[in-house]
């Protein structure tokens, strides 16, 4: 694992002007990422998805993204032209989204969509792209790649759809993968399968991974480091294995809400929100536990 960080984010802000004033979805988020698995955990509205999308400049109008520093592998993502960003998207940074029912094009065959991901960045004949797509389908452990290649998205199950999504996003061999709630739309049993595939592929290829989720347990078991977000700010950053020793009251509150098999069986505590958390996050880009 190299020492120079793959991704550097400093003071990232995402704002939406509305009739009632400026709504801030992300309020000054800072972190850096190497070739490791970083989890971002937060409840709905904490800004975790927006953080992921702003890296790829996919925050839709009228959202405004600003940052003191937004760097990927030495490339200034803020100053990059749209053409440069298009070269980066897919080829260097990819994103897996939540629900394959909606994130796959319903009128295009699944295999063609995967092949398209490859052909966007590599000028190869269609037959070659198809071969690679079939290889990729095998890599995500789909048993009958030929048949699935010809299928339409509504003909495959949720778990298979997510594996197709992963195949599509990894076929151009990117350095960084952002996974935005990749297993939230799946049944629990399928979740673990898909995660296992993701884990394998990311580790094999030495990629960086940003895993966005609301499920603290899942992230803790899967990632190397964890970022806890609340109301657009980072509350805490720590190593996954040290999560139980987390210090911020919000993190502690989240941990206490999780039921455990060997718990005392009493009522679970309710998270008490301190309004002070709305004002202060982890300032000055400090990183815990690195």
């Amino acid at each position: 694992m190299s020492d120079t960080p793959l991704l550097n984010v400093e003071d990232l802000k995402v704002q939406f002007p509305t009739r009632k004033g400026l709504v801030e979805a992300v309020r000054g988020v800072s972190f850096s990422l190497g070739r490791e698995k970083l989890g971002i955990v937060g409840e709905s509205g904490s800004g975790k998805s927006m953080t992921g999308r702003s890296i790829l400049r996919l925050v839709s109008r009228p959202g405004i993204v600003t940052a003191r520093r937004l760097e990927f592998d030495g490339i200034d993502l803020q100053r990059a032209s749209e053409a440069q960003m298009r070269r980066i998207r897919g080829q260097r940074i990819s994103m897996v989204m939540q629900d394959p029912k909606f994130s796959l094009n319903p009128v295009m065959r699944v295999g063609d969509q995967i092949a398209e991901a490859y052909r966007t960045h590599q000028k190869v004949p269609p037959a070659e792209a198809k071969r690679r797509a079939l290889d990729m389908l095998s890599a995500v452990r789909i048993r009958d790649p030929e048949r699935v290649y010809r299928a339409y998205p509504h003909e495959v199950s949720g778990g298979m759809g997510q594996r197709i999504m992963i195949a599509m996003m990894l076929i151009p061999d990117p350095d960084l993968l952002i996974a935005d709630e990749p297993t939230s739309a799946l049944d629990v049993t399928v979740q673990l399968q898909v995660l296992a595939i993701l884990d394998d592929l990311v580790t094999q290829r030495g990629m960086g991974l940003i895993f966005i989720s609301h499920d603290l347990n899942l992230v803790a078991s899967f990632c190397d480091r964890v970022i806890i977000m609340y109301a657009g700010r980072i509350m805490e950053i720590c190593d996954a294995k040290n999560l139980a020793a987390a210090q911020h009251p919000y993190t502690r509150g989240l941990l206490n809400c999780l039921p455990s098999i060997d718990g005392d069986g009493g009522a679970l505590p309710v998270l008490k929100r301190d309004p002070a958390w709305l004002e202060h996050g982890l300032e000055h880009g400090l990183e815990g536990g690195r």
Partner: protein
Amino acid sequence: MTNQTDNLSRAGAGFRSLSLPSPLRTALSLVSTVLLTFLGLLLVTFIIGRVMPIDPVLAIVGDRAPEHVIERVREELGLNLPLYQQFVIYVWNVLQGDLGVSVLTANPVIDDIKNVFPATLELATVATLFGVILGVPMGVLAAVYQGRWPDQVIRVVGLLGYSIPVFWLGLMGLLLFYATWDLVPGPGRLDYAYDGLIDTVTGVILIDAAIAGEWDAFWNAASHLVLPASILGYFSLAYISRMTRSFMLEQLNQEYITTARVKGVPEWRVVWVHALGNVWVPLVTVIALSYANLLEGSVLTEIVFSWPGLGYYLTQSLLNADMNAVLGATMVVGAVFIGINLLSDLLYKLLDPRAR
């Protein structure tokens, strides 16, 4: 706009008790819906023709007809019989193709209609082509540039199409392009010189002239077609571009569009292949409905351009109080309308991979 798809599911519910394979059931419910609607159409024209007028016979033959004609028609219509029996006779006649005889031309109405229908078909087809070729790209551009000036311009152009009277626009077109600038020939489908030159094969002059190899006549017919087709086409364009814009906006907000962008797909492909690819299916339905609407628009346009089509026939019959012809033409238009709606529903089912 009719959405016969709900009708299908409702009608289908009645058939669920029959244990038949599913495609057969769908076909049955489709047929039953169409038949019922057509029957209703006949009922409405029957009511308009026989029940509403004070003396239906006079309505058909006119009040200057001699006594024995009135008596004969009264016999034929069976006006002495109870209403429902009259209706049954009426339906039976229609199904055999007997729409009565036109007072004006003394021909059977069905023959008259067969003569004039191709002219309207020609006009509506060319106009719809015009509307699609221009309207779809306009709608896409309006969606892509939503809120900015191309969108505003295209929306205004579309809005005008819902606000301008078609017959007035036709008159203005004649005034400018024919009278003032002499760019197009005058009313009618062909110059006098070509009258009777071409054998009628399909009734569509463009096709018939091409078949006969008479290219002079072909271009002459085309030049006559340009102005009325453009005027009608404008209204088709307004509707199609508006619906395309609406569909495109809906698609551009979907997650799979983000996926395509994440892959690094160039924006033109995201819009014209991914988004538009999902729009084609409902758009085909819209185009079919636009075609149907143009049949209605042609009624007034044909008068202005002396275009001898179904609309011209309908209005002339109306002005001459030729009741059989009016009802016959109304029924044909209604039947074509139903047919096109049916076709658009079928096309939707055929083209959408999710519905197969």
